[in-house]
């Protein structure tokens, strides 16, 4: 049935007429189909072209194909753990200085297999580098604008007015080819973010100018396997609605490549929502409950034993949980639409002896394992008695 036919029909308004009008009419019996087709739900394993367990078990739901991480210049699997500590030195007053260079670049990125988005990026990647430091460190970021549009760096943190990275504050918008060095002390500890605050704000955010900003508490947090997850989305046809939802940019990437972790170990997620256009986003964990630290600015959970949280844009927090049994556990936005449009992934929880195989399955190695377990800027606090 063509569009034209369909519109033609709806003009004639066949569609809303309803069956009631036909009831009792002599023609009804004559014209009714012998039986109404009832589609059969496809059973497990009936996926035709699925690439993920999700696809195999859900009637071939999901995306088709793979994203070329090499061409993109970033791998969402690495993004989970690639903390950027900056160039570290000690200031005369004993304070730790972390120096970064962030360059704004316009770049086409592949956000779903075969689907390209004309992004504005920090350092050629979306999300931008995950800046990780310790509370009280001095942060110095040289921002270079190599994009054709003016941009800024606006940190969610405590800083002087002229470092706020908004139009009218300090240097305001940094023009094409210009450079500015943002400088401040990292506080408070928590799970934060930075993004461009140039106008129009909506476009500058949804085009990809954002990243995670993690400030570890001075005393550190308990040892854990850590991942950063920036929930983002892309409006590929610029109609004010997102076509692709994801964590760390690529739709359904962790469904195709489940994130390896071990039975019993503490898993800590730094979760940030930067989705534009939609009022809220959410995170739901399957088969376990977690403790939640809103904004990560406390050492005690702000919410205990939940399996679903919601976040408005720029809201973020830390999740902590452990899995008891091996399995491929799903997590996703419990806004089903987002989940089915790309914001869905799996953890591959395995016994320690199976862990190397789980790593190899997704093309990761010991370096990735080390980053995920020893990424904190503060050495793990040794608990008394442990």
């Amino acid at each position, binding site marked *: *049935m*063509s*569009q*034209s*036919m*369909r*519109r*033609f*029909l*709806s*003009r*004639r*308004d*066949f*569609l809303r*007429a*309803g*069956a009631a*009008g*036909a009831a009792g*009419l002599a*023609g*009804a019996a*004559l*014209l*009714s*189909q012998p039986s*109404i*087709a*009832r*589609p*059969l*739900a*496809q059973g497990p394993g009936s*996926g*035709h*072209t699925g690439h993920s367990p999700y*696809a195999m078990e859900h*009637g*071939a*739901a*999901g*995306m*088709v*194909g793979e994203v070329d991480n090499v061409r993109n210049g970033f791998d969402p699997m690495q993004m989970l753990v690639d903390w950027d500590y900056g160039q570290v030195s000690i200031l005369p007053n004993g304070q730790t200085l972390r120096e970064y260079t962030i360059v704004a670049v316009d770049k086409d990125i592949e956000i*779903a*297999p*075969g*689907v*390209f988005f004309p992004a504005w990026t920090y350092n050629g990647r979306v999300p931008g580098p995950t800046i990780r430091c310790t509370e009280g460190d001095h942060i110095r970021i040289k921002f270079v604008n190599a994009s054709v549009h003016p941009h800024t760096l606006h940190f969610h943190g405590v800083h002087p007015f002229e470092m706020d990275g908004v139009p009218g504050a300090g240097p305001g918008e940094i023009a094409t080819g210009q450079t500015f060095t943002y400088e401040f002390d990292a506080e408070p500890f928590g799970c934060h973010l930075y993004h461009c605050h140039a106008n129009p704000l909506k476009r500058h955010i949804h085009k990809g100018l954002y990243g995670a900003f993690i400030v570890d508490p001075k005393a550190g947090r308990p040892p854990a396997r850590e991942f950063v997850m920036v929930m983002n989305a*892309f409006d*590929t*046809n610029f109609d004010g609605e997102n*076509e692709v939802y994801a964590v760390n940019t690529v*739709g*359904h990437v962790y469904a195709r490549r489940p994130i390896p972790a071990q039975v019993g170990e503490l898993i800590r997620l730094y979760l940030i929502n930067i989705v534009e256009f939609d009022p809220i986003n959410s995170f739901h964990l399957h088969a376990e409950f977690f403790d939640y630290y809103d904004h990560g600015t406390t050492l005690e959970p702000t919410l205990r034993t939940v399996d679903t949280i919601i976040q408005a844009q720029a809201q973020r927090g830390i999740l902590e949980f452990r899995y008891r049994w091996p399995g491929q556990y799903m997590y996703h936005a419990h806004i089903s*639409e987002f989940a*089915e*449009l*790309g914001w869905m992934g799996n953890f591959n929880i395995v016994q320690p002896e199976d862990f190397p195989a789980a790593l190899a399955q997704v093309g990761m190695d010991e370096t990735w394992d080390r980053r995920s377990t020893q990424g904190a800027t503060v050495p793990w606090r040794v608990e008394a008695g442990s």
Partner: protein
Amino acid sequence: MSTKTQVELSKRVSGAGWLLVLAPLLLLGIILALIVTTGGGLRELAGPPVEKLTVQRVILPEPGMIQIEVINDGPQPVTVAQVQVDDAYWSFTAEPSTTLPRLGRSTFTIPYPWVAEEAHVVRLVSGLGATFDAEIAVAVESPRPSASLFLRFALVGLYVGIVPVMLGMLWYPFMRRLSNAAMNFVLSLTVGLLIFLAVSTWLDATEFAAELPAFWQGVPMVLFVSLISLGTLLALSSRRGERTPLQVSYLIALGIGLHNLGEGLAIGAAFSLGEAALGSFLVLGFTLHNITEGVAIAAPVVRVSPGLKHFVALAVLAGGPAIVGTLLGGYAFDPVLATVFLAIGIGAIVQVIWEVGKMVIRDNARAGRPAVNWISLSGVVAGVAIMYFTAFLVKF
């Protein structure tokens, strides 16, 4: 220049040279090749890519399966990277390819558990993130050719086409008893009916046309085809001089037949969309709506007796296309052909408005009435009104 030299010149040209005819074409070829290979200095004018796809057809061949046929009517190749159904990415296969060259076609097959009698939207996402939607208004398994379904479709065509036309013709004996003035009213009423049909066929045709892939230039095509159809019929009639009343009846039957083909297409497509239940109500509506078509066909031959044979032939010509249309609409709908047939129908109907109009004017002249008088005018208005108000049954 004298006429003589002109003739000689043209003779010499036709002898000497196809080369002279070909020279500009050769040069054109060279320039085109230059622009294609070197850019011809136009590189800077190259704008952002434009992607355009038109969905031709949506088929639900079996439970858990959706197929859509797509044509690329944009200026550049388009690659379909992902497919969403109801805002969910879904696996799919494309035949012959996910990349469609300009004017290329592909069929996408999506193993999606669609829900009977509910609505769905299939969205194709291109490599550049553009989206193209195909709507499924009421999901029902697409009909597969079978003897019983074929029969049912034909029966529907019979009810909306042949039956009302024949019933309308049954007023023929009554019309024969009418006075001259009353018959003038009936002929004027026929003009009114036909005016309504011309307008509604035009609207249907332009509606199809607007949705055709851009290169067809749908609306101009409707205009030109109807003008050609009208012109051809007028040229034929002026060559043979005055038409006999029976010829006029046949022309009316042809025009109405083409109109009924369009109605049949719509009904057949509605069935294949799964609206069989409401279809039965529509069928009754169309039967009522179309009953006046028989009057229009019979009116010109009131003063002659063409015989039963001709009445059967007229009814088949006017009503039969509804059967053909229903079958085509149900099984093999082609929007381009549908548009062309409707456009031909417009020309044919306008031509019979002209013919019957002439009959009314001649009749008025014989009776010493002005060409436009209250009898004729009220006839026309009554004709339009009957069609307009019976159309309430088929528009919801």
